[in-house]
């Protein structure tokens, strides 16, 4: 083009842009009016443009619209809706303070914001529970429990009673990323699954992503459980607590500087073991944990938070056996508003998991653990009311101690041994967009690039043909290969490197205001593996980083769903179907010894896994009687084929059910508010029994009988089912009083079904005959808790 033409075009373009409508931004924070606690996921909807968004994890929102007059509808479950008329002719800063819905109980329930399915957002495969909803579920063992609550949702199960961890859409318990205020938690249960590590009083909000996982999350295949703690009441000092038969808890919160800074500190502990001490029984099992948080609002653009968590479980049998384990986390976060449209959060996190075992009668002391240093910088860019960009970067440094063994005293025959420590770095950079294309279609698309470096200082084995596992054709078994040499890597030198691109995509199509269909695809990578020969994380399991032999696990998941709200949000229905394919899922060769194994590569074989299913969730959202029915039909299986046609693979290379496969999983949760004094709730859980391998014969060897087994996991334990009930009594004298109290009574497993946690086969030592032994862990367990707050 000639210079003159160019200049003319430029002037024209400039005038076009000058004539384009000016846009302004309204932004701010949404919080609870009484305690100034920011609210996560509050919906702000612009009536005129039919666009909207939800507040982010820090209660922040930002909407950019062309100049004009708008009506903003702000609503959130449990709070009164606010309708705000705004005149947008300049950038506005508006904070909204919502009041809790007052429930008038005679006949009519007033403006109770009902839970409804979000029809518009492409977000799917997500379950969100506020602590209010969790508190309305039956209380098991004396207190509300985060993990027990998510187990009633579709697609979520656990491997068995008394086992810690949970399984999402047929994924292993190690495939869940559990975050508390953005910090990784490695073991989410106390006392083998009896309690979760989350003190319900300290929690503000939780969200479980089962699929359609946004690109800011990564590092685990199956789910993200994202939990946020409360900041603490910025207005006045309050305390609350509860005393129960098994455990008690107490929380104190209040302002440091009124309206600007607050603190929260909560502690919990169990003491059932003290009853044992009364009877001169020297054994004990207990847990304790501490949640702390300091929040300070420096100015309108800057907030800082310091959170901490410390928890321990202790099992002690007569001084000769002491087992201690738990998580510890400390993190510092800084929210900064670069502009009205650009929100950022910088997190600096230290997270640690410790596991220790002391066996005095053998003379053995073992310490192991993981230390994790993590930095994250996340940006949320609210570009227009229809387009939002999220981007950021993350870096983790891991220090694994697989075990340090020491003698407990001079007369112990144990030789000290330190298993090689392992080091790794996991980094990621991501970007994704939430884009409302039209009135009917919204998209969410993004990419995460993750990178993993396995670092020295370490000495690694080398093997013939790079095969740490060899197949012995004579015995038809896999055996560990002898290393042919070693390679030493200096401190921070790269031993192995992996790069992966993880695309994420979700779309929602609104059929009408009441219904929509959604679809999503995600690819996830997991660089850490839980080395465990059991189906759920027991404390003895060891986390291992990927290396040349233990490759990162890769997952592709697709999901589609149909969502509908009925009768003015009185009911809602969510139906989803998913399919997952996983590469590099390992399984162990027979006779694998995983404990204190320096060379895990010698006992594992690479295989694949897949899971597919249908989930249905039907809810009644309001009224005296509320609740939901959740049903999941699914299958999860794995396959380890031989590496060559001569090799057998595991289970002859056939697909076999994983240990946490549950064909049918039904949960019915019901809540009934009789009057101001009494509230009742009940849970009914029914699921297919765990897959097991039963014997199909026996023989005698060296004077004992030995079982012969059929194919892996072909049978199932008997169906698992139980009914839990609870009743909450709020005395009328509470009204208007500063001290609020309530009694909660609960019964776990009301009809005392002896559900089989396992069926083992053994030879009776007194009669010599074979027998089948069923182990049930919890029969009927009553509980009573007295809760107070002031």
């Amino acid at each position, binding site marked *: 083009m000639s210079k003159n033409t160019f200049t003319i075009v430029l002037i024209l373009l400039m005038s076009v842009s000058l004539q384009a409508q000016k846009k302004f931004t309204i932004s701010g924070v949404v919080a609870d009016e009484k305690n100034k606690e920011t609210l996560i996921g509050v919906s702000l909807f612009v009536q005129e443009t039919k666009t909207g968004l939800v507040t982010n994890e820090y209660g922040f929102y930002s909407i950019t619209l062309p100049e004009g007059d708008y009506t903003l509808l702000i609503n959130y479950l449990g709070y009164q809706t606010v309708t705000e008329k705004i005149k947008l002719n300049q950038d506005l800063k508006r904070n909204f303070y919502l009041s809790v819905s007052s429930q008038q109980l005679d006949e009519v329930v007033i403006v109770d914001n009902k839970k409804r399915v979000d029809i518009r957002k492409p977000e799917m495969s997500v379950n969100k529970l506020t602590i209010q909803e969790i508190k309305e579920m039956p209380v098991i063992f004396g207190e509300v429990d985060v993990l027990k609550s998510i187990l009633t949702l579709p697609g979520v199960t656990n491997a068995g009673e008394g086992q810690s961890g949970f399984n999402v859409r047929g994924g292993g318990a190690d495939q869940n990323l559990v975050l508390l205020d953005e910090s990784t938690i490695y073991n989410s249960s106390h006392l083998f699954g009896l309690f979760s590590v989350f003190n319900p009083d300290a929690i503000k909000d939780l969200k479980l992503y089962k699929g359609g996982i946004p690109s800011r999350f990564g590092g685990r295949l199956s789910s993200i459980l994202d939990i946020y703690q409360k900041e603490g009441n910025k207005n006045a000092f309050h305390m609350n607590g509860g005393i129960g038969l098994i455990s008690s808890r107490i929380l104190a919160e209040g302002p440091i500087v009124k309206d600007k800074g607050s603190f929260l500190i909560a502690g919990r502990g169990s003491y059932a073991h003290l009853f044992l001490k009364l009877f001169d029984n020297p*054994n004990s099992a207990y847990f304790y944990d501490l949640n702390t948080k300091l929040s300070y609002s420096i100015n309108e653009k800057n907030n800082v938070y310091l959170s901490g968590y410390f928890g321990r479980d202790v099992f002690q049998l007569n001084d000769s056996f002491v087992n201690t384990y738990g998580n510890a986390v400390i993190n510092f976060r800084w929210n900064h508003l670069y502009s009205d449209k650009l929100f950022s959060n910088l997190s600096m996190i230290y997270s640690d998991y410790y596991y220790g075992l002391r066996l005095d009668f053998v003379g053995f002391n073992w310490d192991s653990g993981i230390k994790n240093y993590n930095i994250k910088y996340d940006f949320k860019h609210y570009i227009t009311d229809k387009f939002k960009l999220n981007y950021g970067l993350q870096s983790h440094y891991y220090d694994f101690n697989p075990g340090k063994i020491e003698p407990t005293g001079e007369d112990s025959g144990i030789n000290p041994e330190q298993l090689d420590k392992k080091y790794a770095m996991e980094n990621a950079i991501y970007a994704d967009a939430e884009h409302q294309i039209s009135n009917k279609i919204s998209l969410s698309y993004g990419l995460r690039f993750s990178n993993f470096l396995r670092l020295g200082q370490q000495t690694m084995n080398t093997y013939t043909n790079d095969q740490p596992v060899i197949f012995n054709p004579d*015995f038809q078994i896999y055996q560990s290969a002898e290393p042919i040499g070693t390679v030493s890597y200096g401190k921070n030198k790269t031993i192995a490197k992996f790069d992966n691109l993880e695309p994420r995509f979700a779309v929602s199509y609104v059929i009408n205001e009441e219904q929509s269909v959604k679809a999503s695809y995600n690819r996830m990578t997991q660089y850490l593996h839980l080395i465990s020969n059991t189906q759920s994380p027991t404390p003895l399991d060891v986390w291992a980083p990927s290396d040349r032999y233990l490759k990162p696990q890769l997952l592709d998941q697709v999901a589609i769903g149909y969502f509908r709200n009925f009768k003015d949000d009185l009911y809602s229905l969510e139906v989803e179907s998913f399919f997952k394919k996983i590469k590099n899922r390992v399984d162990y060769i027979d006779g694998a010894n995983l404990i204190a194994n320096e060379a895990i590569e010698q006992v594992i074989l690479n295989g694949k896994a897949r899971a597919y299913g249908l989930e249905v969730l039907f809810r009644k959202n309001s009224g005296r009687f509320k609740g939901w029915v959740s049903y999941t039909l699914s299958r999860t299986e794995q396959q380890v084929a031989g590496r060559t046609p001569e090799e057998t693979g595991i289970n002859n290379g056939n697909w076999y059910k994983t240990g946490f496969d549950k064909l049918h999983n039904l949960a019915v949760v019901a809540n009934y508010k009789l009057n101001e004094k009494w509230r009742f709730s009940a849970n009914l859980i029914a699921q297919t029994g765990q897959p097991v391998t039963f014997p199909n014969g*026996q023989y005698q060897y060296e004077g004992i009988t030995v*079982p012969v087994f059929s194919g892996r996991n072909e049978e199932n334990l008997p169906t698992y089912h139980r009914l839990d009930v609870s009743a909450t009594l709020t005395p009328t004298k509470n009204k208007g009083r500063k001290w609020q109290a309530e009694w909660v009574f609960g019964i776990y497993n009301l009809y005392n079904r002896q559900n089989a946690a396992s069926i*083992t086969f053994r030879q009776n030592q007194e*009669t010599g005959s074979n027998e089948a032994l069923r182990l*049930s862990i919890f029969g009927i367990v009553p509980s009573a808790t007295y809760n107070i707050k002031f």
Partner: protein
Amino acid sequence: MKSTNYLYILILLLTFSSCEKVIDIGLETGEPRLVIEASINWYAETAGNEQKIKLSTTTGYFDEDIPKVSNATVFITNSTNQVFDFIEDPTELGTYKCVNFIPSVNETYTLTVIHEGETYTATEKLLNTPTITGVEQINDGGVLGNETEVKFYFDDLVNETNFYFLRIDDPYKVIPEYGVIEDRFFQNNEMFGLYFSEDLKPGDTLKFTLNGVTQGYFNYMDVLLEQTGTNSMGPFSTPTATVRGNIINQTNFDHFALGYFRLSKTEVSEYVIE
């Protein structure tokens, strides 16, 4: 018992209102398979010339009788091709006896069993075993502090990787108890076999048997013992599969035999509870 196995047993003990009950359950029965129990034990201070091998088959899990296998040909050869024949005892069907066996530490032996036209072989070394140096009894011992604890001490064989197969015969139990340990954390130090029981009273005899074994046997018995339920781990059970020993069917590879061919020098200690 392996020190790490203690952990599993102890975790089982910790479960709260847990309950164990023997139940009736129907099980399928698979095709019968040959079982060869070829354990050659050369008891210390004996000639070791009398040895026996037992042949049987698998049967239904709840069947009371174990079917014996007769009319098989059984013999062992050593590295100089000396043949030791095992002849079936007509009064003890399924048991094949030899009276002229020559045991020798570190000698390699090959077992051959011919049954129904198929030949099964296995090759193994006769391993040495340390002597039992002493016995210690602790009352109010055991994990829970109310049991009689007995420790049988022996010195780990020096400068080699060793695996040991232990057996306890308790007068109150109708079947023996077994364990396998390795010298990994105890290399060249004193080791012990540990047993505890509430039932033992003064005057009872507790018999402890120690055998040095190969790593192959250690792995085999480790898995086998987990499956027999004596080392049952309750809720934390591992995936199981039928474990194969070192015996190979030369005629029809997939028609394998169960059992193991093991040879060890054997040390025994009989201790009377005080």
